[in-house]
């Protein structure tokens, strides 16, 4: 089987989409391409389908919240961790999304594996994936208020029961009523 020569992903993406790459970060042998949110699907499709790149496996989509004082282009970051099984290498695509409108195009059309990963991010971070076929909550209950993994969501805890406050705490518990 003829395997095409591996291309440098950074140069290839820069050549094909000169306006899409906002920044390239190298940290501990990991390459991060910061992509313009508008271009994420076309860059993803390019990395997935170009000979010499073939990032055929979507390892992970994760999100990060830079609240409160972020010196970055946006409050939210969405990281796409891609894996090329053919050339055994990984790359990270990253988009920054603004606080008031955290919306990005879905990549379900490129990697079907993105379906539940994007649902999880919507659930946890409140980032909307436009064009997603089934954007419902996945881990939290459907009637949950807010998005728990945002940095401004309180951690929450269970008050410890002692004999002096057990009645008070029990009053607010959602026990079944007669």
């Amino acid at each position, binding site marked *: 089987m003829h395997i095409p020569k591996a291309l440098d992903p950074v140069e290839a993406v820069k050549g094909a989409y000169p306006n899409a790459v906002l920044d390239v970060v190298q940290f501990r042998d990991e390459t991060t391409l910061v992509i313009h949110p508008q271009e994420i699907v076309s860059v993803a499709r390019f990395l997935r389908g170009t000979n010499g790149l073939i990032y055929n496996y979507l390892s992970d989509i994760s999100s990060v*919240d830079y609240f409160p004082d972020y010196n970055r282009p946006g409050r939210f970051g969405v990281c796409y961790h891609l894996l090329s099984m053919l050339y055994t290498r990984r790359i*990270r695509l990253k988009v920054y999304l603004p606080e008031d409108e955290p919306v990005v195009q879905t990549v379900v059309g490129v990697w*079907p*594996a993105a379906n539940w990963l994007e649902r999880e991010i919507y659930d946890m971070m409140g980032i909307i994936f436009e064009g997603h076929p089934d954007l419902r909550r996945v881990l939290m209950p459907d009637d949950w208020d807010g998005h728990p993994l945002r940095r401004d969501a309180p951690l929450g805890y269970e008050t410890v029961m002692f004999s002096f406050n057990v009645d008070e705490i029990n009053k607010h518990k959602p026990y079944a009523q007669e």
Partner: protein
Amino acid sequence: MVAPIVKVEPVAIPDSMKQWEGSLEQLRGLVSERAMTGETMLLNMGPHHPSTHGVLRLLLELDGEQIVTCLPDVGYLHTGIEKSIESKSYEKAVPLTDRMDYLAPMSNNMVFALAVEKLTGLDVPERAQVIRVICLELTRINSHLVWLGTHALDMGAMSVFLYCFREREYLLDMFEMLSGQRLMGSYIRPGGVWRDLPAEFMPALERFINYFPGKVDDYEKILTNNPLWIDRTQGIGVIEPDEGIALGVSGPSLRASGVNWDIRKSQPYSGYEKYDFNVPLGEHGDVYDRFYVRILELRESLKIIQQAMKNVPGGAFRSTNRKFVPPPRAELGRSMEAVIHHFKLWTEGYAAPDQEVFVAIESPRGEIGCYLHGTGGNKPRRAHFKTPSFMHISALGKIAEGHMIADLVGIIGSVDIVLGDSDR
């Protein structure tokens, strides 16, 4: 005699329960149009169904006994581990990772430890790496034993379950020797392992290595050529290689489809490149192949342990970088510096740069990944775990389509899901 038809009056729903009442309209687009007219039946399976390995709920649309749509619903075991990690220093977050995939806690420790080491640039001594490999492979055997037992139990072969759990006891005893706990040992820590191998561990491992291969033969005698087992498993739940890659299936479930992808081979960590082992591959990608690949993996894991235990190098079992790893107890009495380091590490912890890393390793279930983002301070900004069970459950709907409801039990078992791993 024909049973008399009893007319059942519909029970009125009390007002207090109205808020829980769902409507079919909510499912429009998720199930086929035939369900809307009542032509097909909607059936709720789980979350307490014994074959769902925890608390997985499946909403099934059935045409007779055939599955038209399968909608998995997870989240019943969501414990907010990722959120909790954000409020803990890196060292204190390790015990939380144990509790994700409770059948393979060491793999979770490992992926988190690797991520912290990568983020902070911490070194790991040679001895610790070999100990880690031994632990990871024991964990793999442990996890596969539970999988084999429960999978066979689902399909009606109860004796295998009892045998598997008998052998698992040996492993849990060994984990107890290492860490003091049978299940959630938190033994693998950033920088190495928690403590050195105790004196009784190596003889116990030796005994296990000699004892276990015969037991794998026994499992194979019961199942591999058993016509009942073959009838229930062959040709069921086929995952095509391309489909598996696209859906994010990984680990033995993907290798059973013939995709030669094992992170231990392709992107080795912790010195896996030094060991000689094969990556078992399946051919058809059905339930039987997924079963057989894991049986072969049991033997390969034994091979790795045998090679590792022969060459456990001397030296430190944990990094000696005192900015990250607390000093041994004995040093505290002699050295003021050690006291300071000890105090700093257990109160404040250590700082990691405001950067991000992603590490993926091969857990018994598949690719487990850890995305870790530091703040420059002592707590992470974000820790995200990509877990194989989550991906496998998301693929379940596609795999189960068109199968009988009885086969679904086998399919769930064969992709090897742990709900703690999926829900975190």
